[in-house]
């Protein structure tokens, strides 16, 4: 599984990092999210799927 955060859509709601803290990191200055690595570890796939469902801006995509 690969994960992307659209930086144009992300507004820093921080839910993804709350749900999958091993996958998403938040910018120190504005709290916007980005994946630590595009490749999702196998044991994090369920959390990432839940982050996708929970993002208020629908900014996260997986492939």
């Amino acid at each position: 599984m690969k994960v992307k955060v659209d930086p144009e859509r992300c507004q820093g709601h921080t839910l993804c990092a709350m749900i999958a803290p091993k996958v998403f990191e938040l910018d120190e200055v504005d709290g916007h999210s980005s994946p630590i690595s595009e490749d999702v570890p196998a044991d994090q796939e369920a959390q990432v799927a839940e982050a996708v469902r929970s993002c208020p801006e629908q900014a996260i995509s997986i492939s």
Partner: protein
Amino acid sequence: MSAEEVLPDADRKKNRFHFDRHTPEYRHQFESVTQEMQAKCPIAWSDTYGGHWVAAGNREVFELARSAEYLSNDHDVNNERRGYKGITIPTPESMKIQGGFLEMDPPEQRQYRQTLNPYLSPAAVSRWAPVVEKLVRACLDEKIETGQIDFVDDLANVVPAILTLAMMGIPLKQWTIYCEPVHASVYTPPDSPDMPRVRQGQMGMYQDMFAQLAAIKGNPRPGLIDALARVSINGKAPPDMELLGVMALIIGGGFDTTTALTAHALEWLSEHPEQRERLSRERDTLLDPATEEFLRFYCPAPGDGRTISADCEIAGVQFKEGERLWLSWAMANRDPSVFDNPNEVDLARTGNRHHSFGLGIHRCIGSNVARMVFKHMVTAVLDRMPGYQCDPAGAVHYETIGVIQGMQHLPATFTPGSRLGAGLDETIETLQRVCDKQRLAEPVTVRKAKAEIVH
């Protein structure tokens, strides 16, 4: 869009609904109004308040809120641009002041947010956790031996107010000048005989805000006001009135909203003691989703107004430039097409993409503060007053939910316990020294460490 395709008004506005969120009836019938609008007219035209659109469906609110190119938040108080009326419907008559960057559009709005983000990001906010912990402890200590507390007056009103002032760089002991006037201005109906007293309190607050801004301009001390005192917008220092509007936005956003969320959550938990025990027991995994669920369900700021800035068609409706629009976060949060059993609280709810902090470029800049303060207050109550019982006869909800879905009083009883430390006044003095010495209110770009409090 060609001229032929533009529908006459009668067709554009064929979905009509008499929508008046400032009446007590709207509060009492919120669920049925929401269901009816989502089923029949997820975007409706209402003739109330000079006529405006209302978006109630989740998909419609989502699409509209993110169409920044067709929506304006501008509140043009001096009629220098297009005369737009900002985010409140109807426009308040009392004060002609722009509501900070929430009543601005980019690029000015973006410049303000970039200036303040380093004070309010998750990393910046987590530095304040020890301060919040001490404030909550002191508030509960004031009441712990008596077995009686008003969760609004004695806790949820107090902590967000003092923390907000600390982050701004205002002396903490000034909190009483700000706290009651902010809440009273929200819960007092415009025609109330109490209004002159409320206005007087607000005047006192604005006088202190102006004095703080002037003092910090002359003699800088860290905090959000210092950032505003030095800000350059489009290459110029903004007028003081504009900066006061930003300060009022931070105060208005920081005080009453977290109070409202906390009071409603504590009330619900009192009514559902098994869920309360479960939340306390499983807090490591349940506190985060439960917080989002209380945000979804009790949506403290139920919506925002916008002005259509160009003719457009969104979610199947043709809008015309200049028309007003109400985006209902609260109703969007109850849409069954997104949320199963939307009118039930499910502490472990998943896929909870609620809209309670807004959407798009105007996402609540204080959302990280709100979550942190809420979680500290609720868990401290669960630890120190685990079997508390709210008194339904003494609970006072705001009569209307047009501005804030809040509570004025929430008295409760509990098994008395022992104090753990100093009272509130002494704690405020201690925390003021910590703020000053450690320069806690610096942005995260300057100071990264958490507050250190010895006792």
